[in-house]
Structure formats: structure tokens, C-alpha cells
């Protein structure tokens, strides 16, 4: 009798961190996401895996055969496919995280009213934010594993350190997801949501994804270097090509700061929206 009762009594352990906004049960939010994805959105998940693979085949292998080698900032020369593959990996991490944290969250906030339901339970805004972000991370991780396998098969992982691309991808996804969710909380219409694409597309094309940023004038280089994707691309590329330098640690730090800011923003916004 007692055992049954113990699991049938709602369990809330007072959290040390943000006790009124966090019930320590972000996992249940993530579980919900996995279940919902499995039954409704799985096609989007699968397409998210193939997108970078197609880019890699078309641009890296196809176009790359006309381009030959690319010279890295450090002076080393790598095949074009090996140059863009890590960038595509970083982009995939970004896109996966952004999709989960913007469109998915936008729908849940404005149409599904899922968060209203969640926040009527012990869950606080921080549980919801963390749970959704963990879902984005889980997806990013699956993509990254798949894509790294493809890279390995095509011989594009030039160093053992390519394995470190996995945690880097998680870091990148975490940063984008935590920020994306906070920004989405300001969006009210589909038109506003388009602004996210408006920012993502140039970032995707220009952040040393397909060519080194040394082709730009200095001022433009600085702008690109302030953008998160450039840090992501450089971080992952350093690991897959085996050409890490002191900049690696700065890239990691950049994302760490982005995560803290993003989580703070998102939790505040959720609190303002749902616990008003």
C-alpha cells in the first residue's frame, strides 16, 4: 500500500535554483516532446537529417570537384568537401535547434496552448524552457551522429578529434535553442516568425560555411565574427580537420555566455507570459 501511495503522491522537491519557477522536472516536458514527435512530426525530423547530407553531396562532392582544395586561415590546405562538411554539421545543429525552439514553441504558445496546461501543474517556466531545449538537443545529437557517420564514410573526418564535434554540436544547439525560445516568446504572428528566417539565411550562407571570410572587407569580417554561427562553424571545423588553436576556447566561451543569456531571457519571458 505504501509503495503505491509513494508514487501516487505528486513529488515536488524544493529546488535550490529558482524555487518558484522550477520544479526539477524538465524531463517530463522532454518526454512529452518525444512522444508528440514520434506520433506527429517524425517526417520533419527525418528531413532534417537529409538536408545537410544533400548539401554535402551537391556542394562538397559535386561542386567541390571543380574547386579542389581550400586554404585554412592557419595556412593548411584541405579538400573542399572536408572544408564545408563541418560547417554543414554546425548549420544542421543550428537549424534543428531553431526549428524546435521557434516554430514548435510558437505553435505551442499561440495555438496548442500546451504551456497553459503544463504551467497549471507543478512545472514552472524554467522546467518548460529546459525541457524544450533538451528536446532540441536530443534531436541535434541524433543529427550530428548521423552526419558524422556520413562524413566518416566519405573520408571527410581528417583527425581523431572529429569525435569532439559531437559535444560541440550539443553546445551550439543548446545556445541556439535557449535563445530561439526566448525570441519566439515575443512573436505573435506568422509574419513575425519570418524574421527569424530573414536572419538565419544570410548567417547560413556567409559565416565561413562555403568559403573563408577572408574574402570580405575587414569591417564585414568583424560583423560575421560577432555572429554565433561563425563560432559554431569554426569550432566544429577545428575538430573535424584536427586544426584546433587557441580560438577554440573562445568559441566555447561564446556559446557558454549565449546559453546563460538565452536561458535567462527565456525563463523571464515565460514567467511574464504565463505567470502574469
Amino acid at each position: 500500500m505504501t509503495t503505491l501511495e509513494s508514487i501516487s503522491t505528486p513529488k515536488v522537491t524544493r529546488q535550490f535554483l529558482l524555487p518558484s519557477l522550477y520544479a526539477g522536472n524538465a524531463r517530463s516536458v522532454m518526454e512529452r516532446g518525444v512522444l508528440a514527435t514520434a506520433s506527429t512530426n517524425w517526417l520533419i525530423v527525418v528531413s532534417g537529417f537529409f538536408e545537410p547530407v544533400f548539401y554535402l553531396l551537391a556542394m562538397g562532392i559535386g561542386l567541390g570537384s571543380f574547386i579542389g582544395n581550400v586554404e585554412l586561415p592557419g595556412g593548411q590546405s584541405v579538400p573542399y568537401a572536408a572544408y564545408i562538411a563541418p560547417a554543414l554539421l554546425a548549420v544542421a545543429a543550428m537549424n534543428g535547434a531553431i526549428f524546435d525552439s521557434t516554430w514548435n514553441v510558437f505553435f505551442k504558445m499561440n495555438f496548442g496552448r500546451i504551456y497553459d496546461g503544463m504551467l497549471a501543474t507543478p512545472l514552472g517556466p524554467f522546467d518548460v524552457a529546459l525541457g524544450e531545449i533538451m528536446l532540441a538537443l536530443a534531436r541535434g545529437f541524433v543529427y550530428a551522429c548521423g552526419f558524422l557517420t556520413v562524413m566518416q564514410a566519405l573520408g571527410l573526418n581528417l583527425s581523431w578529434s572529429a569525435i569532439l564535434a559531437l559535444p560541440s554540436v550539443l553546445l551550439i544547439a543548446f545556445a541556439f535553442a535557449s535563445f530561439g525560445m526566448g525570441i519566439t516568446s515575443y512573436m505573435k504572428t506568422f509574419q513575425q516568425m519570418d524574421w527569424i528566417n530573414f536572419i538565419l539565411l544570410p548567417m547560413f550562407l556567409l559565416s565561413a560555411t562555403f568559403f573563408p571570410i577572408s574574402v570580405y572587407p575587414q569591417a564585414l569580417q568583424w560583423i560575421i565574427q560577432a555572429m554565433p554561427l561563425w563560432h559554431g562553424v569554426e569550432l566544429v571545423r577545428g575538430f573535424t580537420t584536427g586544426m584546433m588553436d587557441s580560438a577554440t576556447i573562445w568559441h566555447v566561451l561564446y556559446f557558454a555566455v549565449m546559453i546563460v543569456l538565452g536561458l535567462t531571457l527565456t525563463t523571464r519571458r515565460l514567467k511574464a507570459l504565463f505567470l502574469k
Partner: protein
Amino acid sequence: MCLVQLWNKCALLLIAFIFVPSPSIPVVKATELVKKYKEFSAVDGISFEIASGESFGFLGPNGAGKSTTMRMIGAVSTRTSGELSVVGLDPNNYGPEIRSQLGVVPQSDNLDTELRVRENLIVYGRYFGLGRSFLSSKADELLEFAQLKDKAKERIDDLSGGMKRRLTIARALINDPRILLLDEPTTGLDPQARHILWDRLFRLKEQGTTLILTTHYMDEAEQLCDRLVVIDKGKIMAEGSPASLIRKYSSREVLELRFGSEHNAKVAKKVDGIGERVEVLPDRILIYSENGEATLKQITDLGLNPLTSLVRRSSLEDVFLRLTGRSLIE
């Protein structure tokens, strides 16, 4: 095993110690509660107490401040000023702890449309940190309770309005809440669905669950509430049991007369003084009295021939009309 059981007992006792107030302490206590949105006061200094096991209603028109009050009790809205305690805790600081003791049925259903019927119950239970094996049997039990057993695998969008409402209520019971908050539980339902719902709620009340509900339906308040407050423009207008409110603010019976829209006002002057009180509405005249039939006879004796006449028991609607001077459902 023994140790585990002992530990569970200790944990339970601890929870009981923290959360279960002694009978003298109300489960909800509000003192001069205020909620302002910018300059507008949605709730303007209301005080009330709700005892454990009681069925308590907020009755009032749209925009009276009922839902806002419910949101504050549900620890999803912070008050502007005043005091509020729910299960003995301050909602501003103990949101998760309080919400773990509540079941919430919102005004419009917010079921998870990306999940199936039974999944909705299980996933919701997971938000409360409940165990999977427990939830599996609990979900079946609640589907039975909500008469949705054969709909377990359906999509939410394929359910009727009444079924969705029952599922929402079943979902709110997943954690065996001490307090069930129902915001207009039967709005938009057909009469049959309403009666099924009332029956389910009445059973919960019998089991000792504290029910707190808002409604703008008089019959609902009379059916379900032990005690209620009539609230309008963020303030409490009256408080008491449905019967005592009717006694205090109305008469035993009401005579409704229709003379046709043009004649009502003219006739009203003639019937002045008959019964305890006369209320002239655009479409009819209401005469409050202890004996409606006798009053009707007085009217016909005066030579007045209403197009239709109706003697009925006095209801909360009459109370509301008296208190606010206007019809409740606008």
C-alpha cells in the same frame, strides 16, 4: 523493502505535516486581494475563506474578476496586493508546491492535440512527477470515470465538446488533487453533457475534494455550491449559501408576467405595491412574493390580463438582478 516502506511512510508523514492543514485552517484564505493590470483593477480587494471539503463558487458576469481570482488561487498569477494563502502556502513563493495539490480545469480546454486521449492523461501525470506504472492504472480508472474508456486511442480533435470537457476534468484529477479549480466547467455544453458533468463533480464532492468553481449559470451554482460569493466589477457583492442568498435578497417565489413589450411599463404602474417587490424588465415584469399563485390572482382581480404568466421558485438569477440591478448574462 522494509526500509523503503519505512522511508515512504516518513515521507508521507512529512508531506502530510507540511501540506495538510488542521481543519480549522482554511485551504484558501484571501484578505483584501487585489489584481491590477496597468490601471484596471480586475480584482479589487476581495476577502474570502474556503474550508477543506467545501464546494465554493464565484458567481458573476463576464469580466467580473472570477477567472483572475482563480488564476491567483491556481498560483499562475501573482497578486498586486493583499494576502493569499493556498493549502497554507504563499502562491508567490511556492508555486510548484501549491500546484502539485491542485487540479485545474481551465475555461477553454487546452488538451494536448498532438497526443491521443490516454496519452494526455499519462503525460499530464508525468508533469506531476508521478510514476509510470501508477499512471497506467490511474489513467484507465479516470477514463472509466469520464466515460471515455472506448475513446482511449482517439485523437483529441475527434472528440465532442462534452467529451473534451470530461477528459479535461479527468486530467485534472490525475494527481488526486485536494482542491479542484473549475473555471466555467459547463459553458458551451448541451444540457445532457452538463448533467453528466454535474454528476461527476458531485461524486468528487462526496469523496471530500474541495471544489472551487466559477460560473455564470445560476442553476449550476445552485446544484454544486455549498457557499458562494457574487462578484461584480472585482468586488464581492454578497456571500452565503444559495438558499440563504435567495432568502436574503429575493422572495420564495417569483411571478413572471408578459403583457407585450409596449404595455409592460404602463402596466407596471398599476401593479406597484403588489407582492414584496416589482422589477420591470424590457420583456417582462417580475413580481417577488411568498405565494405566486395568490399574487397572480390579485393581478387578475385588478382586471389585468397578461399574455403569459409563470410562477416559479426564486433563483440566484433574481439575487443577482437585485444586487447589481441588471441581468446576469449580457
